[in-house]
């Protein structure tokens, strides 16, 4: 009798738990992007039409096209994301995911989904967050991005020193061609080979093309890749110097590149080459 009683208790408790689980899942399956509220149930419909081919029914990045796609589609069940405004090891904000869906990722198979309505994209973001229980924690706190310092020759040269001392060149190469001594050994967290960004390729940055986006890349790190966070090691002013220098490595026109190209011919001999001491 007593045993039946206890069993009843346990079953009741289990029911309560599962009810709580369902509630939690519902609570996490909305997104807030600006004045929009994304709804996961609606997002599921968009997902099944547009995303499932690569990201898969289960969100594990194993859709039927996945094996022909390099880099591999994101596995949403791992809940690890490259482009974030939040510190390394934390989840991105809804805005971060929304911007990724909207922007797409250059040099990959992920297109821009701007043709979908803003509401549809917000819905998809809400649905993506149902694939991992990690979303019950909520996103990290976005790192502060202080106002940009003026892009001067002094700032660029200091950024160049940081490129040397922070050992960016070990992967990205002395000229930023993505050919540093460690470049050929790099793998992502799923053991797939991965290349460091080649600044000379002329492609935009994966996580957005503004100076602030570039600032965020090395302060937050790109989780799931070899790119670490430098937030503990680079002060904000120094970080802007590094941003200004990185712009000079790119072939497209920018105020920083213009300054650099005007300065370089008269001063090339003053520069200590980047690389091992």
């Amino acid at each position, binding site marked *: 009798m007593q045993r039946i*009683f*206890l069993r*009843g*208790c346990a079953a*009741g*408790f289990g029911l309560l738990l599962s009810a709580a689980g369902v509630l939690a899942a519902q609570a996490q399956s909305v997104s807030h992007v600006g004045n929009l509220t994304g709804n996961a149930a609606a997002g599921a419909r968009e997902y099944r039409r547009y995303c499932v081919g690569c990201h898969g029914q289960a969100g594990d990045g194993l859709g039927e096209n996945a094996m022909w796609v390099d880099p591999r589609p994101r596995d949403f069940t*791992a809940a*690890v994301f490259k482009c974030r405004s939040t*510190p*390394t*090891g*934390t989840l991105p904000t809804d805005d971060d995911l929304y911007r990724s869906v909207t922007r797409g990722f250059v040099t990959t198979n992920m297109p821009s989904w701007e043709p979908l309505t803003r509401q549809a994209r917000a819905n998809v973001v809400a649905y993506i967050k149902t694939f991992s229980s*990690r979303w019950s924690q909520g996103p990290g706190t976005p790192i502060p991005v202080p106002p940009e310092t003026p892009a001067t020759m002094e700032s660029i040269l200091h950024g160049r020193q940081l490129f040397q*001392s*922070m*050992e960016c060149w*070990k*992967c990205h190469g002395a000229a930023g061609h993505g050919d540093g*001594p*460690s470049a050929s*050994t*790099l793998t992502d*967290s799923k053991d797939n080979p991965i290349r460091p960004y080649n600044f000379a390729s002329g492609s935009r940055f994966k996580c957005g093309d503004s100076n602030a986006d570039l600032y965020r890349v090395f302060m937050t*790190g790109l*989780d*799931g*890749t*070899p*790119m*670490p*966070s*430098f*937030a*503990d*090691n680079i002060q904000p002013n120094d970080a802007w110097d590094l941003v200004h220098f990185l712009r000079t490595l790119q072939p497209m026109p920018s105020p920083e590149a213009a300054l650099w190209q005007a300065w370089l011919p008269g001063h090339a001999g003053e520069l200590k080459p980047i690389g*091992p001491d």
Partner: protein
Amino acid sequence: MRSRFALSLTLLALTASLTGALAGPGGNAGSVSGTVTFTGTPPKMRPIDMSKEPSCAAQHATPLMNETIVSGPGNTVQNAVVYISAGDQPSAAPTQTVRYDQKGCEYLPHVLVMHAGQPLEIYNDDQTSHNIHPLARTNPEWNKSQPPGSPAIKATYAQPEFIPVKCNIHPWMHGYFVVLNTTHGVATGNDGKFSIAGLPPGKYTVTAWHEKFGTLSQEIEITGSSAATANFAFKALPY
């Protein structure tokens, strides 16, 4: 119904705290010890080429060998983790910090055992930058750079997990964080020996884990302050 459930919970908690009190130092607690070995032919470990990082290469008189399998005389296995995987009382995270060093482009220790929630500090003792990239799956995955002379990176892991750690700049650097939900876990030394003390009487599952060999488990029973023995022999498969 609810009150009876609450009562049984309270009783459970009481028993747990009583047994916990009994297991104090000098109390009625047993231990388990043994040796971890392997049989068969292990893969040959090769020397690591550190020529791309001269400041690290200079710290090793003879080249450092790959540490996937480290063994002593008599085929003993170093860097295996032996722990109580079932039967243990729930334990709180110790407050003392565990330390992980990067020295000579090598992780010291190669396998670091800690309790879930225990404070962890990671140091860079080298003249070169490292990035610490623990490839956690259950816990959040993070990746931080640590230039020479920068302060220790502080972290904790809330969930038990076996986490491979790597440095992407120096691809030969591999290690493990072994996060357990028991205080009864140790890594073996070069002699393959381990000893776990402070076990109150009861039945336990002892598990030995090794990054290459996998896991082995066996059941033991502690009565009074008995000293149980558990030896583990991994099979090294030729490949």
